[in-house]
């Protein structure tokens, strides 16, 4: 089945969703926000999947980069009136710089050091945002101005919905293209076999750093967009809880696949919203799901879908193949 047979209908549904919500009319603003927020979270899931699924490096504090991006955008907007595009770009850039400081030492060490370093980073950023109130507004948070984009007012829920949707599509295309070119292949080579990657000319340590910086940039840019979407940033949005949500999205979706990451984001975000009334319930459910997925479906959602599709392709292949596999 060609790829666009799935993506084109999905994009069309996403594009007409505000219209459908308009017709239904009930709690339209709430649902628009929920889906827009999902689009932004899906960008973070894609960024984390690029690092974990594609390059084999673990980040347990990805919401730290989202927080850096969101606060950068919020501060620049509140103080200097920077618009959404500038805020997202600046947020991504600052998150990328932060990741460079963490990644250069961490990726030179083997094993799970990056996971530990990012965990500490995620916890620290949250606390810095809380305590440095002269800059971040502390536990009061920071309010943003009505969002504008290249001089246009995008301050309505419907327009912000389309901004978030387009951002997700752009992020998907960027990561998809990257994985289909030299650098993206090097990421996978480093994950699969460092020794063979080096023999093919891939500088292992710096490739890991580049993957980490790319991932942090995307997460930070998503954070910048999130700040404009919510209109407000506060430390509790970026705690270790939300790092675990992003981690769950990638694991449940199945590592190393963009559709998997988006699917995982749908499942996790749905559980988060459905269980929002009881505090801690969503984390309990997701924790259980991570255990089940790792134990029984290590490939996650991706593998379940692929197993279904594989039956068909294997049949097609054997019919067309001119070389017997055992020749």
């Amino acid at each position, binding site marked *: 089945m060609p790829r666009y047979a799935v993506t084109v209908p999905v994009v069309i549904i996403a594009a007409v969703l505000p219209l459908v919500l308009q017709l239904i009319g009930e709690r339209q603003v709430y649902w628009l926000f929920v889906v827009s927020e999902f689009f932004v979270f899906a960008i973070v899931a894609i960024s984390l999947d690029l690092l974990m699924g*594609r390059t084999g490096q673990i980040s347990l504090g990805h919401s730290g980069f989202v927080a850096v991006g969101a606060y950068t955008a919020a501060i620049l907007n509140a103080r200097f009136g920077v618009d959404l595009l500038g805020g997202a770009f600046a947020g991504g850039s600052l998150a990328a710089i932060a990741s460079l400081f963490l990644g250069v030492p961490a990726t030179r060490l083997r094993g799970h050091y990056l996971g530990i370093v990012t965990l500490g980073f995620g916890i620290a950023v949250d606390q810095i945002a809380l305590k440095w109130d002269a800059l971040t507004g502390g536990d009061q948070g920071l309010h943003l101005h009505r969002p504008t984009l290249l001089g246009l007012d995008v301050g309505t829920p419907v327009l912000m919905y389309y901004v978030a949707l387009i951002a997700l599509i752009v992020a998907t295309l*960027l*990561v998809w*293209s*990257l994985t*289909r*070119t*030299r*650098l*993206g*292949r*090097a990421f*996978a*080579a480093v*994950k*699969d*076999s460092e*020794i*063979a*990657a*080096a*023999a*093919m*000319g*891939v*500088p*292992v340590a710096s490739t890991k750093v*580049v993957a980490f910086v*790319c991932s942090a940039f995307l997460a930070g840019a998503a954070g910048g967009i999130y700040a404009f979407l919510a209109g407000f940033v506060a430390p509790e949005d970026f705690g270790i809880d939300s790092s675990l949500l992003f981690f769950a999205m990638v694991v449940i979706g199945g590592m*190393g696949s963009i559709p998997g990451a988006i699917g995982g984001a749908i499942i996790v975000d749905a559980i988060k919203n459905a269980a929002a009334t009881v505090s801690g319930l969503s984390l309990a459910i997701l924790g259980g799901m991570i255990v089940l997925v790792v134990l029984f479906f290590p490939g996650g959602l991706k593998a379940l879908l692929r197993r279904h599709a594989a039956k068909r392709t294997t049949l097609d*292949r054997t019919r*067309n*193949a*001119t*070389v017997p*596999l*055992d*020749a």
Partner: protein
Amino acid sequence: MLEARGVTVRFGGLVAVDRLDLEVPDTGIFALVGPNGAGKTTLINALSRVCSIASGSVRVNGTDVLELLPHQVVSAGVARSFQRAELFPTLTVLENLLVGLHSEMTTGLEGALMTPSTRRQEKAARVRAERLLRELNLWELRDFSPADLPYGHQKLLDVARALISEPKLLLLDEPFAGLTEAETPRLLACIAGAGRRCAVLMIEHHFELLEGIAERVTVMNFGRKIAEGSPSGVRRDPEVLRCYLGTGRHGQAETAAC
């Protein structure tokens, strides 16, 4: 082509390769044989900078390989395969070959934007990969993960991934190990072809295979070179017989080791 002098590799107190000299001309197939633990793979690893050398010098085409980092060796014209076919299962068969062209290509982050130069490079690389895959009869399998391929095809792909960069020196670590009899000729033809274009240094135990193609065999034991010569010549060398091929009660070779 390859000029290695006094190469010594130590792991703690163990001397894995001991003051070994090895010279290989521009083209042809040269074999390394020796019992397990003789230091053959360590020598290949040392020549490809996977493990570091305690003393000695290695020059390829005049370039001092020891000054290079592991990932720079391929640009100096040294490519290698692995004993256990270290392929990239995340990628497809075709993409595995494209990684072999990593150091020739330049696309970095701009790959995310699919710039015209990215597309040009990708297209040229894919043409080369397609040509090689068709030559090896692997083209039909291009979209599979190497993990789904039979072992013999994996070994073939491992050699192909080293070959695609058109190296001057090709290092192969037991390319035929684990292959079935049916799979051997295809790889043999591939390596013989490579031997006409560049220098091939391979670890191989089958003397039957070597007699057809290898110009020279270097026999190692305990990290040292104990014999060197034509495949049939070293096979009769008393030192080789004693420590490698094994002598029977009457001083004859019992078996060709396999």
